[in-house]
């Protein structure tokens, strides 16, 4: 429920004389249960409405957020005044003027879940699978978004259920972080099962294996590759290319990865919480093939960046800074189990975090494994390894891919993994460093 009158806002922006303008009203109701050490810490409920206004006087661009409908007129007056005092923004070309013929708006509504019960069931599932204790959270979100521009308008509802659970046994951990869009209600048994899955690494051999730093074949779980894709997706934004901070600059239609690798942005899949029917300038979203069989086929664009690049917008605005909505790596043919069984020597890594770059332009990074890293020899897990990092570059990880699993998961976790759908990935000759 919101008290904002968007017709009034649009009329005011027009009558005030702005050349281009867009409004995005987001009204959300969110519930969350957080738990640790097997019991509830906190129940949270949010009731939010925010109106974001983007407007331009020529190339002078201003953006503001408004919470109080009573401040709408004064906020627009202030926008006008400030827009007259700032320099031009040469990057801004305009808001997409092309009439959008249709939007892939799914008829979605909020779904009731009893988060209190689900949280206890998922904890019990983890404990029954061998965990000593569990921590995590569940979110249930319903967010109605109404985007209007001078040229187009679109309203859609997104959100869904998010489940994060981490299982602990001694110093060992396992974790799952999954998301389910509003397309259909998820069965309680399926949600509960995630608790059990999070405890699976706890049953793997725990004998510690000491590894020397060096190059190893690494089998990355959907969480590991999901993390790396989340932290590197901005390199595929044309904004980063223009800034000079992308490892994919000047790579259009060139080989940037193994030929088995295809990466798409798929915001129209409402089975995930990354679903959205339009971008921030009301451009209809669609499947954007970024890397196809190893070849860079497209960047992520807003209308402005697409004009700079001489192409069409991909529906990824951020009006000034395009970005990904819901990345997917297309699945391969093999099972993850078979990929392990066929691995002569390598490391299976279940999760990672704290990915940081020392060189954005060449995408040189390191990331810290967590929730289980295991040494594999002759197709069998020999034991766990600790104190290591993946220390390499994104181009090297992508070009080294030799296997992609047929299983994929809808993964999302905290700020570490944006909503995405990821398989297991085997990449060869990956740099592994360790603490001394």
């Amino acid at each position, binding site marked *: 429920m919101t008290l904002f009158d968007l017709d009034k806002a649009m009329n005011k922006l027009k009558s005030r004389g702005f050349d281009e303008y867009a409004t995005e009203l987001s009204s959300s109701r969110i519930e969350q249960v957080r738990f640790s050490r097997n019991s*509830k810490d906190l129940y949270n409920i949010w*009731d939010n409405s925010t109106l974001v206004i983007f407007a331009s006087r020529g190339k002078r661009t201003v953006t503001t957020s408004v919470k109080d409908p009573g401040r709408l007129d004064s906020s627009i007056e202030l926008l006008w005044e400030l827009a007259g005092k*700032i320099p031009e923004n040469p990057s801004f070309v305009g808001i997409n003027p092309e009439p959008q013929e249709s939007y892939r708006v799914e008829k979605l509504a909020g779904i009731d879940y009893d988060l209190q019960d689900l949280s206890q069931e998922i904890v019990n599932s983890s404990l029954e699978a061998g965990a000593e204790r569990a921590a995590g959270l569940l979110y249930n979100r319903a967010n109605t978004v109404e985007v209007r521009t001078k040229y187009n308008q679109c309203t859609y509802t997104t959100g869904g259920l998010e489940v994060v659970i981490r299982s602990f046994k001694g110093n060992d951990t396992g974790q799952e972080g999954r998301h389910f869009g509003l397309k259909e209600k998820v069965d309680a048994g399926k949600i509960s099962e995630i608790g059990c899955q999070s405890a699976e690494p706890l049953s793997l051999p725990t004998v510690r294996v000491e590894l020397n730093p060096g190059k190893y074949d690494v089998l990355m779980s959907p969480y590991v590759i999901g993390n790396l894709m989340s932290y590197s997706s901005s390199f595929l934004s044309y904004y980063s290319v223009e800034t000079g901070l992308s490892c994919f600059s000047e790579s259009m239609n060139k080989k940037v990865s193994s030929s088995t690798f295809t990466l798409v942005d798929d915001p129209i899949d409402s089975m995930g919480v990354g679903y959205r029917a339009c971008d921030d300038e009301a451009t209809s979203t669609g499947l954007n093939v970024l890397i196809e069989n190893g070849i860079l086929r497209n960047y992520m664009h807003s209308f402005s960046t697409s004009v700079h690049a001489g192409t069409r917008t991909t529906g990824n605005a951020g009006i000034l800074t395009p970005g990904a909505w819901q990345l997917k790596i297309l699945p391969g043919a093999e099972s993850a189990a078979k990929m392990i069984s066929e691995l002569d020597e390598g490391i299976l890594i279940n999760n990672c975090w704290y990915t940081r*770059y020392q*060189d954005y332009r060449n995408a040189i990074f390191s990331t810290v494994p967590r929730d289980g890293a295991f040494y594999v020899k002759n197709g069998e897990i020999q034991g766990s390894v600790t104190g290591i990092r993946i220390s390499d570059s994104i181009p090297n990880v992508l070009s080294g891919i030799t296997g992609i699993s047929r299983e994929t998961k809808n993964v999302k976790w*905290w*700020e570490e993994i944006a909503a995405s759908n990821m398989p297991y990935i085997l990449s060869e000759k990956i740099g592994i460093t360790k603490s001394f």
Partner: protein
Amino acid sequence: MDGDLIHKILDYASSRSKFAEARYMDLVVNQVGFRNGEFQGLNFGSEHGYAVRVVNRSISMAYSDSNDWNRVKESIDRAIEKSNFEGKNRIYEGNPIKDTWKVKASKKLEDYSIEDRVAIVRENDAAMESSGAAVRVNSMVDKQINQLYVNSTGSEIRGEISRLFYFYLVGVVESGEFEQSTEQFGSSSGFEYIEKLDLRDRIEQDINELHQSAAAPRINPGKFDIIVGPEISGIVAHESCGHPTEYDRIIGREGAQAGESFLTGKEFPLRIGSPVVNVVDDPTMDGSFGFYKYDDEGIPSRKRYLYKKGETNEFILNRESAAQLGIESNAGGRSSSWNLEPLARMSTTYIEPGDYKFDDLFDGVRRGVYIKSFTEWNIDDIRFNEKYVGKEAYLITDGDISGRVRRPTIETNTIKFYSSVDAIGNDLQFSAGMCGKGDPEQGVDVWMGGPHMRLREVYLQ
């Protein structure tokens, strides 16, 4: 400041709970930026709303940005209903406090025009260009926070906070090699902070160093005596002392997000390192980015020794984790917005300075590396296995700097790092950061700092 409903909210929630509190926050933010010489537009906005916490059989919070009582009441009713289900429900209540406080600012944010803000950022972009930078990103954010906190014990505290944050990223290409630097500056004050920073000089110096570092040779891996600069002392204090001593982490509250702590399950005091090491977290430092007189749970702030003489000493506590420990909160409860729960957080975390002059640290270093600043860093989720990649670094031979080296890397653990420290300089310096934690993730404004320090026999890669 609005927030007219706050007493009605508190009365309603208190009558239905064992403990209740309400917080109204009004947050006004301005942001301007330049990228490679191009102005990136102005962002500004106002955020405001209520956070209500109720404690019964468990703890619940409701967040609403509405001024419509019926709508706010609906969320509170839901929170109260859920708080009657089983869960953890201990909370430190403390004594009632009534007070008003504000950050000192001689050049108030509201007196600075948008043209003044743009001019600052434009000048720094120009300095980058004239110094030969290939990539230039500058951003400045200022925010004014007005907050009113009330609770069922009778506390009522009004706070006014103004903060400034400056971020830049610069990249150079030298002989085909790319080298980058990101720096952050922040303060709880007015625009006098930015004026005194001499940012232009700092940027020009940074770019000059990057050009030289890009062309420098790598080291051969091995053990070295190392001297680390204040920037590295600061990040180490933050990552491997501040975070692991947040008591909510120790008891698993952040287990599925930022993680637990290597201190989980240990007996205290626990020896962490050399007896010369003291690490402090102090929210009372005037002008510091993490300054506050009261935390966001209405507890008066004070200085805390986290590691003292190389051992654990005190933990960072909010109301919830203090109750779990059975002691008073020490005012670590911070929330970065009206719609986020207060968690146990750092403020200004630093390694306490020692007696050594900078030059004296080099005495007796036969084969060493001076790592003045860092670029990439990370640490595992129990805050033990950590990595710092040098940005500006030099070889030391027989006590003298003998040439520059590129990206020397410390990859070690917390105990080894602090145990290797044998001398601490007297030149305390601070840098700013945004510290992330919680779900939804919330970044709080912090300083981190320390002096130059000497460490013996550290493996570098």
